[in-house]
């Protein structure tokens, strides 16, 4: 049963203690990170909009999230008359729990250079700086992100009100569409790493051999865009478009239940950034120097630094880009990102086979590119013909 952490196969008291410790620390760290993230986002967006942002509660307003949390906690908990009560109560947890669970497979530290696989020694036991390392690590992330759809969808439906329902139907369509692009861009990483385990993926990227350039940047861009859409963050926040849908799927929610959705949203942003760092930017890999204690914490420092870059970019996108229209959103997902990710994956696969068979790289590259361009030409011709035919029908009518 404990095979999930292969290093804990001989189960005894201290091993269980380490697992418990890891779980508690990961939980607490994530909660604190979410609080900090809410403050960070409000502060940065405020500065981008020439405002001050939260500045009253604590130094630089850093306790603002805490104050808001306490306020929400003491507010009246409203249940709409038309609501489907059990589902209405369940939905916030269905949003929050997957957000938490994704964090479990993210390697947060440990030395990955020289084939050390991030193994650290705590209390005389060898273990990893991640809560669990299942063989299927990255599939777990996908599974949990597909679970997150339920929270949004059921919240909207169970409210018994039209705007939340519209918001949730949009959300479901959007999240399912972009999951395809997310998965296809992920394939490139898996092809390069040859493993589904997050630990192996990070190990394969040691020594600046990051997947970001090993897979040729395109999968990273596709993954990043798809992840933004999957998170329902601007510019893909049609789910809660204030101007059209009041507040989207959580319109009818108040008090603590609303706080749970809010928490889940920011937690998803953090965990998705962590997943991007793990997949493409080498996770905790980075230069190591200094005395022993510094070397022990440096990987975690690198991880946090990379994480912070993405968190800032997400906030930056929110502060800069206008929201997409619904058909633009669907066009981008289905007609651009999915074919692009698929074509790039095929190209990488051709290179891989060429490497195994000892073919000339340049020839493989040229032939592969030509074939893919031909495919793209065929698809665009098909789309163009369909559009022209529709236009002709319109003229007739």
């Amino acid at each position, binding site marked *: *049963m*404990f*095979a999930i952490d292969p290093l804990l196969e001989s*189960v*005894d*008291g201290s091993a*269980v203690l380490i697992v418990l410790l890891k779980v508690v620390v990961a939980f607490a760290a994530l909660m604190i990170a979410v609080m900090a993230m809410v403050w960070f986002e409000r502060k940065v967006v405020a500065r981008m909009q020439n405002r001050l942002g939260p500045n009253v509660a604590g130094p630089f307003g850093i306790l603002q999230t805490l104050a808001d949390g306490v306020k929400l906690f003491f507010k009246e908990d409203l249940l709409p008359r038309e609501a*489907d009560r*059990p*589902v209405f109560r*369940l939905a916030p947890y269905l949003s929050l729990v997957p957000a938490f669970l994704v964090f479990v497979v993210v390697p947060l530290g440990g030395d990955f250079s020289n084939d050390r696989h991030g193994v650290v020694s705590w209390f005389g036991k060898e273990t990893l700086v991640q809560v669990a390392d*299942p*063989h*299927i690590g990255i*599939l*777990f992330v*996908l*599974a949990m992100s*597909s*679970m997150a*759809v*339920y929270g949004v*969808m*059921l919240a909207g*439906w*169970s409210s018994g009100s039209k705007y939340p*329902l519209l918001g*949730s*139907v949009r959300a*479901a*369509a959007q999240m*399912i569409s972009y*999951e395809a692009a997310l998965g296809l861009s992920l394939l490139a990483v898996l092809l390069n790493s040859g493993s*589904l385990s997050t630990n192996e993926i990070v190990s394969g990227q040691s020594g600046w051999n990051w997947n970001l350039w090993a897979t040729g940047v395109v999968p990273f861009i596709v993954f990043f865009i798809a992840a933004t859409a999957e998170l329902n963050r601007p510019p893909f926040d049609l789910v809660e478009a204030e101007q059209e849908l009041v507040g989207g799927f959580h319109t009818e929610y108040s008090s603590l239940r609303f706080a749970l959705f809010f928490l889940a949203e920011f937690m998803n942003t953090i965990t998705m950034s962590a997943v991007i760092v793990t997949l493409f930017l080498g996770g905790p890999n980075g230069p190591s120097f200094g005395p022993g204690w510094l070397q022990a914490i440096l990987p975690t420092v690198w991880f946090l630094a990379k994480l912070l870059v993405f968190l800032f970019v997400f906030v930056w996108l929110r502060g800069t880009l206008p929201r997409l229209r619904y*058909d633009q959103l669907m066009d981008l997902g289905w007609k651009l990102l999915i074919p692009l990710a698929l074509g790039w994956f095929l190209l990488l696969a051709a290179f891989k086979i060429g490497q195994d068979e000892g073919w000339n790289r340049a020839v493989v590259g040229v032939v592969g590119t030509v074939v893919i361009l031909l495919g793209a030409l065929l698809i665009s011709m098909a789309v163009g013909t369909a559009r022209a035919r*529709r*236009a002709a*029908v*319109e003229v*007739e*009518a």
Partner: protein
Amino acid sequence: MFATSLVQTLTFAIAAMICVTGALGVVALRNPVHNALSLVATLFGVAVLFIAQEAYFLAAIQVIVYAGAIVVLFLFVIMLLGVDRAESFAAERHPLGLAVGGILGGGVMVLAAVTLFAGVDTATGRRSTVGALAPSDDLNRIGRALFTEYAFAFELTSLLLTIAVLGAVLLSRRASGPPIDLDEFPAEEPDADAEEVEA
């Protein structure tokens, strides 16, 4: 220190309970959305059982494909069709329904019981409630089997799925009525049907 067999038995008991409760919920609850949610619970229970047998890949695929895609699609259709209230679900009972259902259900029960008690090699050649069925990890085994032994069947299935997708697109597309070009705002609505074509 811990009796692993106790932990395994407990895991099995809890997962099995979730499965059975979910299955009962699918049949007994009156609201289609609640039915779909019960189905998710059952699928999750099965995924946990897969993990208990160290078939991690199957568990992940179970959650991603069944819980994450298929049931979401069910819910989507239920919500869009607006049959999401209990009263719209009332159906006339066919006189033979109970008899046929009883016979079928009983048959499946008997079949399951026979397989369970008949011996080791009856159904799949292996049996286990908890604990791994195979020495190596399931991802490799499934991959190898799919792309060597069953490659032809695998390719046929993908062809079938492609045809099904094309068919669905063709069927959902109606030729009558001028469609709307999404890149432009329509000057005025020609008729109500035209909107549905694009939607």
